[in-house]
């Protein structure tokens, strides 16, 4: 059984007004425990709508979301308990910081879960550690932190609930390369060590290519592709028709393959590309690599 099962989800905004717009159109997808899934699509493709339905912030117009086989919107389920299991980190999460210390802010979620003080403390510390926040920052006001630290503190506020699935909506928006790489490494580490399901929504194809095992492509409220990253990114034309670009390096390698060079399609990182091209260069020179 899949951890998360989405069945025939449909949702429209502004029902009954002239601005009615279908955001999701009969979407079905299964997500297994422990997967790292990348979600790509244009603004307005339905990504954010879908994500907010996975933890019940939006109620489907039609269709269901099953978590471990339970319909999360069934009346018998307390939706709050679902939200503790499906964590959602919004874009610019630092805008949600409110408490007078970082520690209290991170503990907001666990406290809402009704955990004991010791347990809350433990979780706050381990969540802060996970995102790389120094201990001494915990008793500072969140508003004194630097931009990158604020972002990490806010993310710790979701991680501290230890959800089975954690969704990151554009977690690196506005960060510089250093901050971005650091945060993505932390997320990747979280996925690896805790074995929890991670869903990463991003506009950066390079980031998706580097970290995601599977990629979900949304376009105009429908799922166009859902497959292994390599397979998705080798379909340059199909993605292009949706106005989505593949990472530069993937494009370059796919083009070389098209020209008849002996390289594989769907190369995802510069390192991988280097290995393949270096092999070709060596062969040309008649050397061994």
């Amino acid at each position, binding site marked *: 059984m899949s951890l998360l099962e989405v069945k025939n989800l449909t949702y429209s905004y502004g029902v009954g007004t002239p601005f009615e717009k279908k955001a999701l159109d009969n979407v079905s997808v299964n997500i297994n425990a422990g997967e790292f899934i990348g979600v790509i699509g244009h603004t307005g493709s339905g990504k954010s709508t879908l994500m907010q339905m996975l933890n019940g912030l939006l109620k489907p117009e039609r269709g269901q979301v099953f978590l471990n086989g339970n319909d999360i919107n069934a009346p018998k389920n307390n939706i709050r308990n679902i939200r503790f299991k499906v964590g959602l980190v919004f874009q610019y999460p630092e805008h*949600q*910081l409110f408490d007078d210390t970082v520690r209290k802010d991170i503990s907001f979620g666990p406290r809402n879960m009704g955990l004991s003080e010791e347990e809350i403390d433990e979780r706050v510390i381990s969540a802060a550690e996970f995102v790389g926040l120094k201990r001494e920052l915990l008793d500072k006001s969140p508003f004194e932190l630097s931009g990158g630290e604020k972002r990490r503190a806010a993310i710790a*506020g979701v991680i501290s609930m230890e959800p089975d699935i954690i969704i990151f909506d554009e977690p690196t928006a506005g960060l510089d390369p250093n901050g971005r790489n650091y945060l993505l490494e932390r997320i990747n580490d979280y996925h690896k060590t805790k074995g929890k399901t991670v869903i990463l929504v991003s506009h950066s194809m390079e980031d998706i290519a580097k970290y995601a095992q599977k990629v979900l492509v949304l376009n105009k409220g429908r799922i166009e592709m859902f497959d292994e990253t390599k397979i998705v990114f080798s379909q340059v034309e199909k993605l292009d028709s949706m106005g989505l670009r593949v990472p530069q390096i993937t494009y370059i390698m796919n083009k070389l393959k098209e020209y008849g060079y002996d390289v594989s399609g769907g190369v995802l990182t510069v390192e991988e590309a280097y290995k393949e091209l270096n092999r070709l260069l060596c062969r040309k020179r008649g050397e061994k690599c």
Partner: protein
Amino acid sequence: MLSDITIGQFFPGNSIIHRLDPRIKLVLLLSFIVFIFITGNYFSLSFIFIFVLSVVIMSGVALKMYLKSLKAIVYIVLFTSVINLLYGRGEPIAQLGILKVTVSGINNAVFVFIRIVSLILISSVLTYTTSPTQLTDGMERLMSPLKVFKIQVHEIAMMMTIALRFIPTLLDETEKIMNAQKARGASMDSGNVIQRIKAFIPVLVPLLVSSFRRAYELATAMECRCYHGGDGRTRMKSLHLKKADYISSAVCVIAFCGVVALNIILPAAER
């Protein structure tokens, strides 16, 4: 969604009402309010109500939008009407315990109902057909005589412009923050009053912080665009009274005279 609120919303269009000078519209709105309240009998009341309805239709904005603005206050209207209905003077027509309905009660209820509805409709006409900038511009110019009393009319108008500009932005932001806190298990709609107020702190604090940040950034951006108060400032859209403004003012004045005449000629309703 929160941003669905229609009060203060502007629907661009090209109707005769849209094209009127905002100063005229403001003055006429004020006069409408006065005359709506001096109606004394059913004739003058229905006369001004029909007049308001025709203005609504002439505005060319979808009727649905007007219904939406009425929907927002439907409970207040019904509540005050019912209170009026039950607190009339004179001989009761029907009675249930201490609750009695009298002729004056019925009259009061109908008057309150029609008056508030007319009021909302005519104010909506103003906000729906006048861009916020035009509106504040009109106010600024109407109030400019107040400069004599050292009142900073331009600054007040600029503050109103900015407030109107940022209402939808802040509503959007409120919704986002609420969702973010709900995702961390906050519950905003259960518990007693104190619990509920406490539950809003995680929303209000971030909202306040971001408003300050926005204010600071906006002030910098305005300075970079050479803003330095109202002195020496020109406007792209200067206001000139046109034929339509004179005609519509005349029509309204005649209508207002009509209200007064109907009030005098015909007997007042029992109140």
